[in-house]
């Protein structure tokens, strides 16, 4: 089965190679990526990083390449639920991995800020990308990154020049739709922050039930010296969707990066965040929430590479699992030999709302330096019955009490979000699964 799926993608590359845009260096990279993909194949559960994840349901679906899918039927009104109310944002919309200019909108931006479709950049000035594209998300050991590198059509290119602050968030909205056959898209994003620049970027992945889609996204971030990035990834695809996303962050000296990952939709979801401190003084926050129900599977892998001294990483992930859903948290922190004065804290807490839900939590810390402060903690538990009783004893019915306590469990992660309209939207998404807790969000 896996072999068939693999060959399908290899064949797709062969037949569409001529249409895949790009200069010679990119064509060479694509060729080498498909070669790696063919050699690696899709990972099986024998692979350490995939042992909790059965890809068979993904490989069974005969996805039609998004290049052939018509992005019709997507109008601005349909995207309204995926925006952030009063929040003013520049917005790039991609439908099935392709830029949709008529749905996109750029606000007035500081001089030199570039927000573009990556396909446009490849057509007009491909040399801009050569020094960065594929340098952070390496395809040599990763089938999904290899597949994306070989087949991507489009995505967002963001460039913030030095000493420039972009006040309003930049919203990248990726919608997947499949009216007839299931479709696959490989969006590819590159975010470059110049020295002492600052930006907020939101990636929303969205779709509509019951459409079956497969998104295989890759985002590369190069955070220049003393730059500040606030990044949000909000995954709201259909409950029938497959979603694999890789985010690779490269942090230069004294840069400060916050990556929020909020995962709600999808039948099978894999969020992989990989960060590297290449120079000293950097700080990183990984702030994640995954919420699953019924038969959803949500995997959350993070890897933080402390390759330089005096960097700080704080990771907080929470999982809320209901029904027969499955979740994985796997966090690896590497502190290399020269990375003295590292501070690394990792916490993963999971709440199981049903006896059939299941989560695997594997915190990991590998320390080769000796002057460091590192710790990690992981818990898996149910709602506190004495808290449920306390609420009920005040007249609140049992279901409402459980919803309130579940919301409270998520609030630690949500409260890390400093932009109020984003926080309110996240509250709404959480509460839409906890209808009896409604009203909680705005009162907090």
């Amino acid at each position, binding site marked *: 089965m896996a072999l068939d799926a693999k060959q399908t993608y290899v064949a797709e590359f062969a037949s569409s190679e001529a249409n895949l845009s790009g200069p010679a260096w990119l064509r060479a990279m694509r060729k080498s990526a498909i070669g790696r993909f063919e050699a690696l194949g899709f990972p099986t559960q024998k692979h350490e990083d995939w042992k909790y994840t059965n890809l068979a349901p993904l490989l069974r679906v005969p996805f039609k390449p998004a290049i052939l899918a018509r992005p019709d039927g997507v109008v601005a009104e349909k995207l309204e639920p995926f925006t952030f109310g009063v929040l003013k944002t520049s917005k790039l919309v991609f439908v099935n991995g392709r830029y949709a200019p008529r749905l996109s909108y750029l606000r007035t931006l500081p001089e030199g800020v570039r927000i573009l479709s990556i396909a446009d950049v490849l057509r007009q000035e491909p040399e801009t990308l050569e020094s960065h594209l594929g340098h952070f998300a390496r395809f040599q050991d990763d089938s999904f990154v290899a597949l994306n590198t070989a087949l991507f059509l489009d995505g967002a290119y963001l460039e913030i020049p030095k000493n420039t602050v972009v006040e309003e968030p930049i919203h990248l909205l990726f919608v997947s739709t499949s009216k007839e056959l299931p479709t696959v898209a490989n969006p590819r994003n590159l975010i470059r922050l110049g020295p002492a620049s600052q930006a907020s970027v939101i990636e929303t992945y969205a779709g509509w039930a019951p459409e079956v889609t497969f998104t295989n996204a890759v985002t590369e971030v190069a955070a220049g010296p003393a730059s500040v990035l606030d990044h949000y990834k909000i995954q709201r695809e259909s409950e029938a969707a497959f979603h694999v996303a890789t985010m690779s962050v490269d942090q230069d000296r004294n840069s400060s990066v916050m990556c929020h990952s909020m995962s709600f939709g999808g039948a099978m979801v894999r969020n992989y965040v990989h960060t590297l401190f290449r120079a000293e003084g950097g700080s990183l926050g990984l702030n994640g929430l995954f919420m699953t129900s019924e038969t959803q599977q949500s995997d959350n892998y993070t890897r933080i590479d402390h390759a330089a001294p005096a960097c700080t990483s704080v990771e907080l992930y929470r999982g809320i699992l209901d029904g027969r859903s499955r979740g994985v948290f796997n966090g690896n922190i590497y502190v290399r030999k020269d990375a003295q004065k590292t501070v690394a804290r990792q916490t993963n807490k999971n709440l199981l709302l049903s006896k059939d839900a299941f989560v695997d939590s594997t915190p990991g810390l590998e320390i080769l330096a000796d002057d460091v402060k590192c710790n990690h903690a992981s818990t898996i538990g149910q709602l*506190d019955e*004495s*808290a449920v*009783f*306390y*609420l*009920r*004893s*005040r*007249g*609140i*019915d*049992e279901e*409402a009490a459980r919803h*309130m*306590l579940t*919301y*409270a*469990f*998520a*609030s*630690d992660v949500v409260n890390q979000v400093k932009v109020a309209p984003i926080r309110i939207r996240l509250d709404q998404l959480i509460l839409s699964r906890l209808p009896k807790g409604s*009203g*909680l969000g705005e*009162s*907090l």
Partner: protein
Amino acid sequence: MLEISNLQVKVGGKEILKGIDLSIQPGEVHAIMGPNGSGKTTLAQVLAGRVTYEVTGGSVRFEGKNLLAMKPEDRAREGVFMAFQYPVEIPGVSNAYFLKAALNAIRKYRGLDEIDAMDFVTLIQDKAKLLSLDETFMKRGLNEGFSGGEKKKNEVFQMAVLEPKFCILDETDSGLDIDALRLVADGINTMRGPKRSMLVVTHYQRLLDYVVPDFVHVLVDGRIVKSGDADLARNLEKHGYGWILEEAPKPQAARP
């Protein structure tokens, strides 16, 4: 208002209450006193509906209705309130939201509309003043990071907002310094009235100096062994529980 007849309760297979009879009329304040392990808290929790307690015999009627058959939330909606000995901390749910949700659940049960937002604010401001509670605490997580005294104040504050018919106060005086004790006692006394009854569970007589009960019952080993008026509590304070234990009839052998 409350009729407890021959109430027997087990916890984890162990018999804790061995046949309690107690009748409380509207407007009365009853105190239950007793040494540690006598079953005081069990009695309070059973009345509030905690499921970890297994009722093996007897009955409890509240305003003629079978209280033991009701879910905890329905007991609250009918007008039963227990101030917890150890209130639970719930970060992420604000005091304000919690209290509004509770108040509206009770109002809905009684066929009333949800409380108007402004009326709610006025209500909690008035009641907070009663207990000298800082208003900022309404925005904080429920009991989150509260001192022992703040938690107890918050229990009485909730009681004042929800205006129950029957209040159970489980060791509400424990952990309070003398100033906080006075505030809490004043709060409780303000709520005394001809239609509201109270059951004050306490180990020490201290609280009863301020909240003077109409009746005092001494609970020993799961049974009420002596009842009297407020003087009984003062005697206990002076002489301890020893004399009652000697005076009390020896437990009968278990019936087959």
